[in-house]
């Protein structure tokens, strides 16, 4: 049975884009999905063997940030974009225990978008190890790829909410993989349920 390392996450301001490009408004995802936290940790620790998810507690307050990206060639800004920002974020990160990586007591990583504008700085502080996991039936509170659900002891029940998460396949490309989204009925560890 997998064991987890529990970290407390804190950030002043995060932008976790929902990848909506069509409009001039970009909302932020209200969960700490597998793809965001796992990729950030993999990059930070240089290991491909990391799997993690997170939850925000309480649901963060939001505000809006307007910026106008300039075209690289011309330097001209076309339209201003309004981006949703999660403020004073508090949450938990659960990392599947991995003997290859020595996770420190405390470290800092960057999550999400507009890091160059000062967003995304997160502090993670070790809180303890979780073993003897109590599983129960409930509603999932984060997003986990189907193919990695066993790593998080998640079992699907009757009503699943599906969506897609990005998984890089190389430095420059990736695919979208079928995933369980928040709101799905599952059996899983209590800490991943609403």
């Amino acid at each position, binding site marked *: 049975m997998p064991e987890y390392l529990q970290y407390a996450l804190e950030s002043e301001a995060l932008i976790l884009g929902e990848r909506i490009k069509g409009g001039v408004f970009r909302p932020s995802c209200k969960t700490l999905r597998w793809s965001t936290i796992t990729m950030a940790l993999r990059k930070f620790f240089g290991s491909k063997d990391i799997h993690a998810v997170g939850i925000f507690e309480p649901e963060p307050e939001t505000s809006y940030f307007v910026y106008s990206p300039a075209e690289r060639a011309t330097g001209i800004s076309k339209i201003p974009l309004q981006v949703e920002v999660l403020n004073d974020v508090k949450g938990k990160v659960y990392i599947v225990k991995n003997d290859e990586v020595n996770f420190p007591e405390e470290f800092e990583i960057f999550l999400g978008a507009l890091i160059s504008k000062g967003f995304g700085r997160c502090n993670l502080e070790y809180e303890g190890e979780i073993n003897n996991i109590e599983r129960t039936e409930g509603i999932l509170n984060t997003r986990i790829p189907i193919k990695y659900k066993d790593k998080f002891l998640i079992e699907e029940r*009757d009503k699943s909410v599906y969506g897609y998460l990005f998984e890089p396949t190389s430095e420059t490309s990736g695919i979208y993989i079928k995933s369980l989204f928040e709101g799905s009925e599952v059996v899983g560890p209590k800490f991943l349920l609403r």
Partner: protein
Amino acid sequence: MKSELVPEIHDILKLCENTKLPGAKGAVAPHTHPDLVYKHVRIENQTWEGVCKHHHREGTFPDTSNLFLLHIADRLAAGVSRALTEHKLGADAWKRYGIDDKVFKLWKNSFVDIKRDKRHIRPLNLNTIIEFIATNPTAKEYFEEYGSYLPIRAESATLGTNITSLYTHSKLTGQFYRILKKAGYSVEDNRLSSRETVGDIYNEKIKKWTLKVVRCKVNFSQKPFRVRDLNIFRILKEIRRRIGEELGDYVLFSTFDEFLFVLPPNKDVELLKPFLADYGLWFEFSERIQEIKDLHPDPEKLKKEAKFEIEKKKKEQEESLKLKQVKNQIPKDRKKEAEKRIRMGYKKTLEELTEKWERKIKEEKMSGLLREGAEYVELFPVIKPPICEICQMAPAEYTRIDEESGVKEELCKYCWKIQEGGERLTKLAEWTYEEGIKTAWLKVSLDFDKLTETLKQLYIEYLKWSGIPDPEGKAEIRFSVLSEFQLDYDSFLNQLEEEMVSKFGDENVEQILDDFFCVKIDNLSEIVKILSIYKELIESYFPKFKETAESPIKMVISCSHVKFPFFEHWRYLKNPEDDVNVMLVGSGKMKIELRRLGDLLDLELANKTAIEKLARMADVSEELAFMQIFSEEGIKNHPELQEALKKGFNLRDLLTYVKIKSG
């Protein structure tokens, strides 16, 4: 007899005045003496047979398969449970409890509205009815001819049972009759030879024959932002219309995204898919195959019963422990140990109870009687980029370039189709090109679970008032009550639209769904107009919901500059936190119970200068505004706010209201 049986007309004699019939002493109600009517009048058509033979009584009984199905459909469409039929209450129930021919609407009427034994709605004479039936009328002709009486005449006049109209009952009887036919149910005519055998066959078939009750909620993955994205709502409206048209008999209740179906057991919920396939919509469902005897509109009844029983037991245990402590049954010196032992015993009982229910639910699931799930039109195991930017559920196959901004959009086939035809909400589209326009989005929602729970409570109160014993055991909300409610709810929404147009002008109201509007407003104080319209309509249609702790009907208003992204409004609009909710984007929000809405609107807030100052202060700092209200100056300038606080209003809600009032 070549004519078709029209099941909707079966209860027409309930509209008939008391009549002298051969074989009866004096004038009697023809509906309760169908045998005398049938002896007296013969019309060679199936509908007349249905009118006289849909109950198994002395003299007349269903003697063909179709009449037998009508008999069952009539019971399924009854407003009350079997526990409240005359068989259970006794044939003289009407004498003991009294009668009122007018429908008692649980959500509307008060007990003072009841006229015990003083109101008859039986406007037709027998000859008129005979002449009408002899023309072989259709159901449509029946509803047209007697449309002014059917919605007010109760299906059952006995007090405590007069909770649905003859209109709803007739319509539902027609639906259930056709559902039973489509399920292929029938009885050989020669078996229906006497009243007694019909009774036996009835008792056999209501346990043997089953129907499938399905609750569905249609969802969309699209995240609507701009006016053209709102086409998704137009599509949902169109889908509801098509489902109503093509699956009409199966639809027993519906809102813009929820449906309650009754299906023959061999039909599958998959029948929804063709309606949704073009747009990539998905749906959640719960379905339960049930015996006709106990057909209940909520397929999740078993799960809810389990939850209720477990919670009840927990409460009982807590109370029992408290009682033992109070009565000092637990000696002080051994208190901790004894309590631990008692709690362990309780825990074991709870675990056994939970296990019992889980086993029951599992058994139903294993045998295929209970099924829940989510159905998607198409799911890909993997999507290679680009993924659709609107729904993120399918590969992008089309590229759209926005003419104004030049922004490229990669769309899947579903979202492309949804956007086809451009911006249909023309008023809203025009407003987005103007500067400085404010809009208020208004969404009314109906919580189905809360509705059935509230109606049941109201029904228990009515049965108590009527003096019928064991109201808790007898009160059951059946399909016909829900259908009756739907009529009023739809009418309420129509009226809401009319009022909005009349108060704001047609050019300023964009109706997106029956329960969803966008209104162009000049200033925030116009929200008060919307709140007043809503309050008046609730008082007119559903006054009883003002007396309940939580209303099943909820309203959300979300207000901002017109260009503010719609999806942010939608997140708020689709999840009402309380009965009445107002969001002023970036400026505050308010959520109050329906029963307090009147008090809120009655707040005078006479000192306009002081209110405006307070609102400006609240914009800068709510804490500062709180301090101002409680300052010496505040107590002098805002006595009405002090009063409202005493009445239990939340300070933050009041400040938002102050901002609304000050415009």
